[in-house]
C-alpha cells in the first residue's frame, strides 16, 4: 500500500507539473526533440551509407559479351562452364534484342540514333552474379580464367575496380560522417542534459521545501525523474516523426525528379534504430534528471 502511495504520488505530481507548466515543458521537449532529431538524422545517414554499400557490393557482376558469330554449341559450352562453376551465384542470358531494349530504356535520348542503324550493335551476353565470398578482384580474375579456352566470347568485363574505388570513397565519407556525427551527438546530449539541469535548478526552492517538510528522497526525485523520462520519450517520438516527414518530402522530390535508383537506395531508420532514438531520449531524461536532483539534494544537505 505504501509503495502504491509513492507511485501514485510520483505519477500525480509529474502529470500536474507538466500540465501546469506547459511552456517550460514545451520548450524543454522542443530543444530535446531537435537534439534527438540531429542524432536520428546522423543514424539515418550512416544506415543509408551502409545499405548503399551492401547493395552495390551485391550487384557486382561479370558480363560475358558474346560474339555475333557465336554458335549454339559454343553457347551451350559457355553455359555448361557457368553451371559447373563454384563461383557463380546466378546468371542470366541477355539476348541482343533485350540488351537493346534495356539500353533504350536507360538512355531514351539515343532512340533516334539507334533507329537509323541497320543492325543492332549491342551484343548478346551473360550477366553473371558471383557468390558473395568471391567478390574480391583476385577471385574474379580466377573466375575469368575458366573461359580462356571457350570460343564465341568477344569480351569479359567486370566492374569490381570501379566499385572498389567507389567503396573506398564512400568509406572516407562514412568516416567523416562518423566524426561529424559524434560531435553532433555529443553536442545534442550536452544540450539535453543542460536543459534538464536548468529545469531542475529552476525548481531548487521546491526541492528544498520538500526536504524541510520531511519528504524522502524518492518523493523528491521520483516526479523529476518521471518528468524527465516522459519528456525524453515524447521528444524521441517527435524527432522520429520529424525525420519521417523529412524522409517523405525527400522521397517526393526524388520521385518527381525521376531518379528511380535513388528511391530504392534511400531507406528510413530501421525499427531497431527507431527504438534506440526513443530509448536515448528516455535514458537522457532519466540520467539528466536523476543526477541533477541528486546533485541538488547533496548541495542542500
Amino acid at each position: 500500500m505504501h509503495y502504491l502511495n509513492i507511485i501514485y504520488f510520483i505519477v500525480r505530481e509529474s502529470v500536474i507539473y507538466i500540465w501546469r507548466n506547459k511552456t517550460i515543458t514545451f520548450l524543454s521537449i522542443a530543444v530535446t526533440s531537435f537534439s534527438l532529431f540531429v542524432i536520428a538524422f546522423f543514424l539515418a545517414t550512416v544506415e543509408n551509407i551502409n545499405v548503399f554499400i551492401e547493395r552495390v557490393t551485391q550487384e557486382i557482376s561479370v558480363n560475358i559479351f558474346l560474339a555475333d558469330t557465336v554458335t549454339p554449341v559454343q553457347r551451350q559450352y559457355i553455359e555448361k562452364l557457368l553451371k559447373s562453376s563454384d563461383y557463380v551465384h546466378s546468371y542470366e542470358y541477355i539476348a541482343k534484342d533485350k540488351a537493346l531494349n534495356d539500353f533504350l530504356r536507360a538512355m531514351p535520348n539515343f532512340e533516334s540514333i539507334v533507329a537509323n542503324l541497320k543492325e543492332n550493335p549491342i551484343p548478346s551476353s551473360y550477366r553473371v552474379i558471383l557468390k558473395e565470398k568471391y567478390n574480391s578482384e583476385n577471385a574474379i580474375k580466377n573466375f575469368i580464367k575458366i573461359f580462356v579456352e571457350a570460343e564465341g566470347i568477344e569480351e569479359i568485363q567486370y566492374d569490381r575496380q570501379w566499385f572498389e574505388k567507389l567503396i573506398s570513397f564512400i568509406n572516407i565519407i562514412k568516416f567523416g560522417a562518423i566524426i561529424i556525427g559524434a560531435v553532433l551527438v555529443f553536442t545534442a546530449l550536452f544540450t539535453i542534459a543542460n536543459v534538464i539541469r536548468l529545469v531542475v535548478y529552476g525548481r531548487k526552492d521546491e526541492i528544498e521545501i520538500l526536504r524541510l517538510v520531511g519528504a524522502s528522497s524518492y518523493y523528491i526525485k521520483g516526479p523529476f525523474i518521471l518528468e524527465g523520462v516522459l519528456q525524453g520519450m515524447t521528444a524521441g517520438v517527435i524527432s522520429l516523426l520529424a525525420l519521417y516527414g523529412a524522409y517523405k518530402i525527400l522521397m517526393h522530390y526524388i520521385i518527381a525528379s525521376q531518379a528511380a535508383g535513388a528511391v530504392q537506395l534511400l531507406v528510413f531508420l530501421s525499427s531497431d534504430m527507431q527504438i534506440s532514438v526513443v530509448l536515448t531520449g528516455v535514458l537522457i531524461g532519466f540520467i539528466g534528471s536523476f543526477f541533477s536532483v541528486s546533485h541538488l539534494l547533496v548541495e542542500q544537505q
Partner: protein
Amino acid sequence: MEMIKFFNVAKVYEGNNLAIDNATLSIEKGDFCFVTGPSGAGKSTFLKLILRQELPTKGQILVLGRNLSKLPMAQIPDFRRNIGFVFQDFKLLNRKTIYENVAIVLQILGTSFREQRLHVFEILRKVGLQHKLKSFPPMLSGGEQQRVAIARALINKPAILLADEPTGNLDPDLSLEIMEIFKSINRQGTTAVIATHDKELIRLIGGRIICLDRGQIVDDYTIVGGKK
C-alpha cells in the same frame, strides 16, 4: 520528558560569524517557549539547528531523543515529519494550490485521500482560509500565505512546532488569533518554540521566554498572566 536539549552548542558560519555561542538548555514536552532577542541574535539559527537544517559547529543537540550530529542522512526525512515548521519566508510551493501545499505533508506520510481531505479542510477552516483552497500562493496576501504555512506546520499534529516570526506579516488581531491556534495545539501536547521579537505579544500570550543576544542565552524565564 525532554524534547529538546542543547549541550554547549555553538554555531559558527563562514567568515567566523558566531550565530550561537555555548548554548545549554532543555525544553520539556508540552512547553510553550518564545525565543526572543534583537535582529541577528541567533533566533533563526536556533530553530534551524533543532530542525537539523544546520549542524552545530560544536556541542550536541538532542531532539526527540535523537542526537542530531549523529543522525544518518536517510533518517532525516522521518525525523522532520515529527516537526512542524513555520518559516519566516513561508516557503510555500508556488506551483501548487493552497490545498496541495497543506496536503503534501500528509501525502508523504501515506495518509489516505479521504483523511487528507478531512484534515486539510479542518485546518484551513481553523486558519480562516477554507475559501482559498484552489488559489495559488502568489495570489494571496502576505498574511494569508503566513496562515497557509501555519496550516501546513500543524496538519499532522507534530510533536514539536517551530515558528520563525510567525506573526511578522500579520495585524495584531490576527497575530493573537494565530497564537491562540498555537496555544490550542500546545494544549494537545505539542511542544511549541516560537521565535519573535514582538515583546507585546509575548507579554499577552505568556510562556517560557528564552532571550538571545549575539548568540548567547542571556535570560530564561516564564511569564504567567502577563507577569514574570
